[in-house]
Structure formats: structure tokens, C-alpha cells
């Protein structure tokens, strides 16, 4: 893979994706074989928004490769609090680390930050924009469970503000997939994502109801309705609570259905789904480590 930075799923070709996923499979099969691969390497973590899975799995990934992290910590204890610009922060921190991982509430933040640094920068979520490493672990999970070609996938919930959806939909258009998008009218895919999918010639259909298409799905990807992205609380409350699934809902689905969720969930997947054979979201979260190890290994090797 020849990229300096990983900013958007749009920059990843099918060959790039397959290279990362194949490498992740090798790593998952023999994690001990990669234990000292990046000894002495430091990964700079800059998280301007809360994160559990992304931040911890990046930390786990670099440590399992023999490296370590330098972490900016919460923004209230950093120079950001004093009004430092993002451009300045990343220019300072690139002097402390061999690669950077950035999560920031503004769309386009990683793209901009990457223009100010020479070390590889990975976008770990930019507002409602993109989250390409989540996409890689999602694709890995789909490949392990359903394969990546000739599949029907339903993506449900907050398609407007959900950055994992935007990255995933675009990446899936590189494969032979039929994509169904299920959401309330007010949370449909944004215009720019629809534009890209159209340009790619992706097969997409939009629905407001899951019921009719559920039996045809190989994968159901559920997302959280994100309160923090709504300009006002009343708009959030209007749609919150819709688009939930439970074990009863899944009785109409294929037994081989793969149910995914980028987590955290609120109440869009009931806890009784956890015990079904279709629930795959915890495995999906665990896949974050080998996939991020693979990505870091390829990026760090490429930047040497």
C-alpha cells in the first residue's frame, strides 16, 4: 500500500483493502510473530472527542507490534484549552511520534492536519465525515462472515451523521455488493455520499422500513442515532428509538445473517440479540486490533 496518510475510504482501492485484510488475517493467525516488529516506534494519539474502541485498539495494536503510544490525553488538560490551532498541535506532536492518529469533531480536520505533517497520519473520525479504519475492520468482519462479493447488505439507522456509514458505503462499492439503506427520511444519506456512490456506479436502494428487505440480507449493519450530531434536541427525540431490532425482529431474517454495529449501542440492538448466532458486533470490535496492526505495519514500513 503506497499512502502517506489514511484520510478517507475513498482513497483505498480494492487492492489496498485486500492487502490490509490479508495482512490482518496473517497477523490474527500468528500475533506472536509480529511482537517485536516495531520496537521503539511511538504512535501519537490525538483524540479531541471521546473514544473507547478506536483509541484503545490503536494503543493495543502498536503495543502488540512492540511499540508504544504518546497520548495527548483529554483536550481539557492540553494546549487546545489555551486556544492552540489543530495545525499547530499536529506540527508539535509529529516531533514526538513516528505516526499520528487523529480524531476531531470537525469535518475535513484530518485532511487539513495531514497537509502540515510529514509522518503518516490516520483519520480516526472527523466529525460526520469519514472513519476509514473502522471501515477496514468492518470489511474484515464482513469478509470473515459473509464474504465480500455477491452479498446483500442493509445499513440502518443514522445515515446522515454516521461517519462509519459514509466510509463503509463507499468502500463496499469496490466490491460486488447490493446496498440497502434504511433510515428515517430526516437521516438519509447526505448528498455528497450519494454523489460518490452514483459516480462509482454502486447498486443502492433506500428504504424507510426494514421489514420488507430483512429476509434478503446477508449482513445487517446497525448504527446509533447520534445525539451529539443533532443541531437541536427536539429533532433528536423525534427519531430516537425508531429503527431498533430485537430477537423477535430477527426471526424473519436468514439464520446466516451477520448483525454488525460499530458500537457503542444505546437501544438500537436489544440485549436479547447478543445470544443469537447472528450477533457479530463484539467480534467486529475485537477485529479492530489485528486490522489496525496490519494497517500500522504497512504504513510504517512504507514510510521508512
Amino acid at each position: 500500500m503506497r499512502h502517506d496518510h489514511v484520510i478517507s475510504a475513498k482513497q483505498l482501492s480494492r487492492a489496498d483493502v485486500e492487502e490490509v485484510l490479508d495482512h490482518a488475517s496473517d497477523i490474527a493467525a500468528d500475533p506472536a510473530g509480529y511482537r517485536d516488529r516495531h520496537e521503539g516506534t511511538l504512535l501519537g494519539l490525538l483524540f479531541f472527542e471521546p473514544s473507547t474502541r478506536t483509541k484503545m485498539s490503536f494503543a493495543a495494536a502498536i503495543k502488540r507490534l512492540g511499540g508504544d503510544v504518546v497520548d495527548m490525553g483529554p483536550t481539557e488538560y492540553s494546549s487546545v484549552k489555551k486556544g492552540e490551532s489543530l495545525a499547530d498541535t499536529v506540527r508539535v506532536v509529529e516531533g514526538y511520534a513516528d505516526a499520528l492518529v487523529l480524531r476531531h469533531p470537525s469535518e475535513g480536520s484530518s485532511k487539513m492536519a495531514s497537509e502540515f505533517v510529514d509522518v503518516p497520519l490516520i483519520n480516526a473520525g472527523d466529525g460526520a465525515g469519514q472513519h476509514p479504519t473502522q471501515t477496514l475492520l468492518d470489511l474484515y468482519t464482513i469478509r470473515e462472515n459473509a464474504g465480500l462479493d455477491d452479498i446483500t447488505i442493509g445499513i440502518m439507522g443514522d445515515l446522515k451523521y454516521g461517519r462509519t456509514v459514509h466510509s463503509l458505503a463507499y468502500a463496499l462499492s469496490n466490491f460486488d455488493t447490493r446496498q440497502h439503506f434504511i433510515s428515517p427520511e430526516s437521516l438519509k444519506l447526505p448528498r455528497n455520499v450519494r454523489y460518490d456512490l452514483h459516480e462509482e456506479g454502486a447498486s443502492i436502494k433506500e428504504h424507510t422500513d426494514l421489514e420488507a428487505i430483512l429476509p434478503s440480507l446477508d449482513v445487517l449493519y446497525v448504527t446509533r442515532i447520534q445525539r451529539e450530531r443533532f443541531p437541536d434536541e427536539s429533532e433528536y427525540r423525534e427519531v430516537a428509538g425508531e429503527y431498533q431490532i430485537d430477537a423477535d425482529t430477527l426471526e424473519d431474517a436468514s439464520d446466516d445473517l451477520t448483525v454488525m454495529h460499530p458500537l457503542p449501542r444505546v437501544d438500537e440492538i436489544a440485549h436479547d440479540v447478543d445470544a443469537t448466532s447472528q450477533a457479530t458486533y463484539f467480534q467486529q470490535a475485537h477485529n479492530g486490533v489485528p486490522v489496525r496492526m496490519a494497517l500500522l505495519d504497512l504504513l510504517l514500513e512504507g514510510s521508512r
Partner: protein
Amino acid sequence: MTDETKLRVSKIENGTVIDHVPGGQALHVLAIIGIDGSGGEEVSIGMNVPSDRLGRKDVVKVEDRELSQSEVDVLSLIAPAATINIVRDYDVVEKHRVSRPAEVVGVLTCPNHNCITTEAEPVESRFDVLDDGVRCVYCETIIREDIAAHIMV
């Protein structure tokens, strides 16, 4: 240019004539080139004058002023058929059509309030030019309608 237009908008001695602007867009053209009257520039405008090519067109004449490339780039977005005539000593010494650039830098404001370019960062706005609009290079927001409303003032 018809005789009728000549009567309405007199010749200029030195400066720029922007012709074949879609009818009703002349004030946006002035906004693009940063003229609001306060700078004392001498400006003549013909609005909605008959045109064989456009049906109705606007004409903007500005004394003692030539356009920068970035102004021409943005002009091309709202007036793709415009012609720019450079006038010296009452004669047109240069005449060229606008062409759509691949991108426009530092002239449009991203309408997405959550875009990094709207914050206090040392970065200029940058838009790729699409067939039917423009797209922020940073947050990927697409503007199709009323591009002139997003010109930085």
C-alpha cells in the same frame, strides 16, 4: 453588442468589460471582484439587455481595473459564457472567454459550519469544480445552487 446597449452603457477608456453574464447576475459579478461602491471605482452596468446568445444578459464595465485569475475562476462558475474584454484607450486590446478551473482557492466559504476551514486554522478554503457545482476538498460538501452566495466578502 446591440446599438440599444451602446446607448445605455457608454464606452470606457481603460479597464475591463465583462460581457455575456447571465441576466440578473451583474451584482454578483461585482461581489466577486470586490466592488461595493465604497472604493470609488467607476462602474457601468447593463442588466437584462437582449442578447442573441443568452436571451437576456448583463454587462459590467469597470474603469481602471483588470481581473485577477482567481476572480476570473469564480466568475466562470456563475457566468460560464462570459467574455472578458480588456480596454485601453477606448480599444479592446484583449478578449477572452472564461474557462472553468479545476479548483478555486480562497474565494468561497464552505457552507458546512462544521468544516475545518470555517475555524481559526491557517488554511484557505479549497473547492474542486464539478460539472454542476463545486465541492469542498476538506469536508466534501457539495454546493450546486447559488454559488455566488458563498463568495467570501
